[in-house]
């Protein structure tokens, strides 16, 4: 058995694909061939590192973000069914069809409403549109919102609930870099999301550029106030206006801890090597920074 053949066995070995006989063949060879033995070690290490890659999760609900589009598709499909009154099971209409405006008034109203929402968000966050080069969290969700009312007739039947959901998505993506001018609408959206609405507006005036830089450093999840534990199990996420934080179990997205609102802005989220303690800083309105830590096992926040 030559090294080339053993390479294939080793590859299948790391996938758990070898039977006993093949395993002992491979082991016999690696026992005598230091090169193959070293290769086997490297492959196993690589494979276990690949297995441990973080199970990244989207920073907002993607389904919520496409709800208006799904709603529109649904209505189109229903209309279609009525018009052709024969084929009930017809597959939904093509996404970008130009339908005659049978419910013109309603559609116009819907478009106007969506436009107003888009406008509020657009003008409420002028800084983000200028700083969109950083591939930060802010520009992530916004274009889809702006595009939705423009490219298609928004449905008049779009339920209030789904548009609210849509808005809270947007704030989920953009809130952390919200500007002071947006404080009011930001807070009402935060309220809708169940996050403490009594956020102190002055804390909102964090320089956007800084958070942009942070988002690059934090790596995978890009959101500026988010840190994944080294073992890939937990994600610490600073909430709306960065006055609260949550610990999310990455595996299933469940929130295992939500902090009380803190007297300042949370930043520099960082885990210890063993993923048991989260370190973070709290900066108050005067710019004084204190160091804190959160013990995962004890579920306890303390100064350090």
């Amino acid at each position, binding site marked *: 058995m030559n090294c080339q053949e053993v390479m294939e066995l080793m590859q*299948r070995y790391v996938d758990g694909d070898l039977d006993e006989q093949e395993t002992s063949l491979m082991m016999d060879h690696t026992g005598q061939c230091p090169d193959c033995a070293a290769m086997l070690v490297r492959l196993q290490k690589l494979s276990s590192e690949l297995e441990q890659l973080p199970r990244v999760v989207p920073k907002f609900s993607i389904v919520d973000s496409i709800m208006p589009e799904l709603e529109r598709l649904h209505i189109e499909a229903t209309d279609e069914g009525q018009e052709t009154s024969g084929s009930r099971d017809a597959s939904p209409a093509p996404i970008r069809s130009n339908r005659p405006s049978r419910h013109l008034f309603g559609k116009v109203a819907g478009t106007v409403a969506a436009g107003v929402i888009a406008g509020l968000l657009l003008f409420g966050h002028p800084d983000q549109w200028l700083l969109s080069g950083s591939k930060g969290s802010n520009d992530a969700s916004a274009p889809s919102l702006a595009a939705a009312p423009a490219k298609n007739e928004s449905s008049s039947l779009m339920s209030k609930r789904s548009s609210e959901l849509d808005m809270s998505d947007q704030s989920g993506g953009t809130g952390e870099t919200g500007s002071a001018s947006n404080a009011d609408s930001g807070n009402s959206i935060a309220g809708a999301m169940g996050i403490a609405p009594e956020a102190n507006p002055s804390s909102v005036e964090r320089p956007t550029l800084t958070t942009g830089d942070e988002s690059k450093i934090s790596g*995978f999840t890009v959101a500026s106030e988010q840190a994944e534990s080294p073992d890939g199990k937990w994600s610490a996420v600073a909430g709306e206006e960065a006055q609260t934080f949550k610990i999310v179990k990455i595996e299933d997205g469940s929130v295992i801890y939500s902090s009380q609102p803190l007297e300042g802005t949370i930043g520099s989220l960082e885990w210890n090597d063993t993923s048991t303690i989260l370190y973070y800083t709290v900066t108050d309105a005067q710019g004084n920074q204190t160091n804190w830590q959160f013990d995962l096992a004890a579920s306890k926040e303390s100064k350090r």
Partner: protein
Amino acid sequence: MVEPALIKAAQAGDREALVTLLREIENQVYRTAYYLLNNEQDALDASQDALIRIYTKIGSYEEKAQFRTWVQRIVTNICIDKFRRKKSSVSIEEHEMVFEAGDNVETEVLSAYAAEEIREAIGKLPEHHRTVVVLRYLQDFSYNEIADSLNLPLNTVKSYLFRARQQLQILLQDYQKGGVRG
């Protein structure tokens, strides 16, 4: 795992079931898109497209295939399209992409995650090798499930995966030798 009953209900026109189903799979869809496209924004866009496509095509899913391999086929196709379009529109060669990654040396140095190195190395693999690796490790797919998702012969899947691991191993060794990470 998505309940067969939920899939059935969604196929029968139960819209609420269909939306519930989409919620159950959105994380797995995003995870693949994220590791294939190596960029959060692109991954969000691709995931939106994939979920909309699943919404409109749910009727065409047939039970003889596993639901999750069907879902992954949709998302990988969208990502590969996106990837090709991006590549041709900017017309950058493979070796220049390596270069581009080098521009972020500053952020790389600051990052303590070995996982980030691996993610970047995955990003340098040819698209089919990358896809196989992502399905194997981020979706925990077997050789057969990967073959079903990508519509490839089993042997091709294996040879892609084996070559991908060899390449990754070399790329990651280079990193360590380069000492960029200190």
